[in-house]
């Protein structure tokens, strides 16, 4: 037993010696003194190998510190006029929603007979069609018109067939719930709507007509989740309101009216914008004024609210955006995660 302990102690001594020799007896030396023995180094280098750099502390920085930092590289410079013109697009959509809500109110009050509503539907459709005709720059051929006619017929007949279903859909739900639900859905629709569709220049119009199969759009506009959510919210709101009406012709007329404005109107706005910005501006302003005129006899409070919202969107928000843009501080540098330059399939 004693010799075992003794041999263990000898073994430990050897291990310790080996460790000490492996460290080349520099275990207790100050790295700042030690480096002078390693030879002179020419200047400070921005590297981390080779231990402490001679004559420089570890917290030394030279002029290359933060040299590779790039500030605000991707920030878009905005000017007030452009932002205001773009905000008119948002304001026009808000006024469209207000317009539709006004017509709903009149229909629910019984002030609008079904026949008048049907005539209104047809009028709006024709107007929209002519607007498209005037603004889309493509050659009109018979297959194109036939295709549009076919789509349109499918659309209208689907709504006509479903009208009886819609009529009895919310019979057991109280009116208060309907109004509350409709208002929330319209708010969701406004918040989630894809406003870039009507304001961005793209070759989306080419995809309207199937006459150009060889012309591919350079950037395919993908619908985002929020755009889908907003469209669905508006459709559900229309169904809820339409289901409050007495006859199914009335239901069909109101549904058609609502869907014309919610689904087909953004397309018209987009084509007008494509054609000319001034035309779009004029069209939007007319629309806003027209909606104001419609709301005024209905309710003073709604009118004031509408005016406030429009002013806020077109005047206050652009000014605010430009003001806070000064605080934008985007930092890029070698520490950023690299972006892949190819698409993952």
């Amino acid at each position, binding site marked *: 037993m004693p010799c075992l302990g003794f041999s263990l102690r000898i073994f430990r001594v050897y291990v310790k010696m080996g460790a000490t020799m492996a460290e080349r007896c520099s275990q207790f030396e100050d790295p700042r003194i030690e480096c002078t023995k390693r030879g002179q180094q020419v200047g400070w280098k921005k590297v981390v190998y080779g231990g402490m750099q001679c004559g420089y502390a570890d917290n030394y920085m030279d002029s290359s510190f933060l040299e590779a930092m790039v500030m605000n590289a991707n920030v878009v410079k905005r000017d007030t006029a452009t932002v205001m013109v773009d905000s008119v697009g948002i304001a026009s959509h808000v006024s469209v929603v207000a317009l539709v809500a006004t017509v709903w109110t009149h229909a629910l009050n019984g002030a609008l007979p079904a026949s008048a509503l049907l005539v209104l539907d047809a009028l709006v459709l024709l107007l929209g069609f002519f607007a498209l005709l005037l603004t889309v720059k493509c050659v009109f051929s018979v297959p194109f018109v036939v295709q549009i006619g076919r789509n349109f017929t499918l659309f209208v007949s689907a709504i006509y067939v479903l009208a009886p279903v819609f009529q009895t859909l919310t019979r057991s739900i109280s009116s208060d719930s309907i109004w509350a639900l409709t208002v929330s859905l319209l708010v969701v629709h406004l918040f989630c709507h894809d406003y870039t569709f009507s304001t961005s220049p793209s070759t989306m119009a080419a995809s309207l007509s199937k006459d150009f199969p060889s012309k591919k759009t350079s950037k395919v506009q993908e619908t985002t989740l929020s755009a889908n959510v907003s469209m669905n919210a508006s459709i559900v709101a229309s169904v809820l309101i339409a289901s409050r009406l007495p006859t199914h012709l009335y239901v069909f007329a109101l549904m058609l009216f609502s869907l014309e404005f919610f689904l087909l109107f953004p397309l018209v706005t987009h084509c007008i914008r494509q054609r000319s910005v001034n035309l779009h501006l004029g069209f939007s302003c007319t629309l806003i004024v027209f909606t104001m005129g419609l709301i005024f006899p209905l309710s003073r409070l709604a009118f004031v609210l509408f005016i406030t919202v429009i002013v806020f969107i077109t005047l206050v928000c652009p000014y605010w955006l430009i003001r806070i843009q000064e605080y934008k501080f985007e930092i890029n540098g070698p*520490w950023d995660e690299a972006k892949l330059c190819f698409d993952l399939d």
Partner: protein
Amino acid sequence: MGENGKLGYGRYRVLMVSDFFYPNFGGVENHIYYLSQCLLQRGHKVVVATHAYGRRSGVRYMTNGLKVYYIPRLPFIQQNVLPTLSGSLPIIRTILVREGITLVHGHQAFSTLCHESLLHARTMGLRVVFTDHSLYGFADLGSIHMNKVLQFTLADVHQAICVSHTSKENTVLRSGLNPEKVFVIPNAVDTAMFRPDPEESPSIKEEIIIVVISRLVYRKGADLLVEVIPEVCRLYPEVRFIVGGDGPKRVRLEEMREKHGLQDRVDMLGAVPHADVRSVLVRGHIFLNSSLTEAFCIAILEAASCGLLTVSTRVGGVPEVLPNDMIVLAPPVPAEMVVAIGHAIQLLPQVDPFSMHNRMINLYSWMDVAKRTEVVYENALSSEDDDLLLRLSRYYACGPWAGKLFCLVAVVNYIVWCFLEWQQVSSSFYYSPLSFKFS
């Protein structure tokens, strides 16, 4: 400084704190372990605190008497404990007082236990050092919150350590810390464990083997591998790949292998335990790293220590890690990476694994890291003590809303500490012995 150039031998009693420690394997874990071992060899007292891993809870002892406290808190998200601000104060205070700690060293910005312990240490008047191991962005929501938390912690830290110069720039920008307080001390590699073994790899005249060992995730550039490997196999018929590691992108690599018919030229090993990494590395001639972001890549050091020539993407702190003749850099673009691999293949005949290994012994050593860390500790201990009001003024300057919130947190923490002091005075604690020697 002592006499005979002995730098603070046996002077410090350090608590290393982080959510990431053994039995987890990773860069931070290894760093804490090796640094603690070297500081123990230099005679200091080192204690590690981390959260409990499964049933591994309580006090454990590791090699050379390294005492580890596995605090009984469960991990909440991504290995971090639930942040409770003053909730961890009682147990951290107990550890600090019992062990007679003078300095707390926290690791990794993403660790909630680290941030809380640094706050408690400052409340109790101890010195605080923080080491940041990763790079973070600025723009997305998670990063913005993380950076604000970091700003809170670093508003009151004595010194900070970063593992590369790029990491120092990133930390300084994220936290608004004075750059004079940040020291650049890299990680190192255990060159005794990672030795080359040319018997294991075939001669470069017959076959050239490229090794890839990384987690197969987006951040580590697995998508770049999917583009690069088929191209390299097409251009260089003598090249074979060994891919070790697992992750969500493994499926893409398997698909790539099937699509190009590379089953005999690309070996997929799956997850490689840390103990087996060396045996995989020595089978190759070239090490390929395709990360999209790295503060400091220890995998490159391990590969260089095993005598492999490295090809890597030029991101983050990677250009600072090795001298230019031991690494070939390329932008994270597949075509350029293929060119870089070709260049590396041409350089291979001039590479001698053993001379590379010997150079690595001189370039990196954990003992050197420990000595430089001691210099940082010395700076921290010699900085003047701060009372609560000075600390609050620093917190207040962090922002119009955040400043007030931070002051509130600090004051509440102080009040809880005062209560704990009243309830059980520090002097009544049982002190652990200063050092634990096995001789």
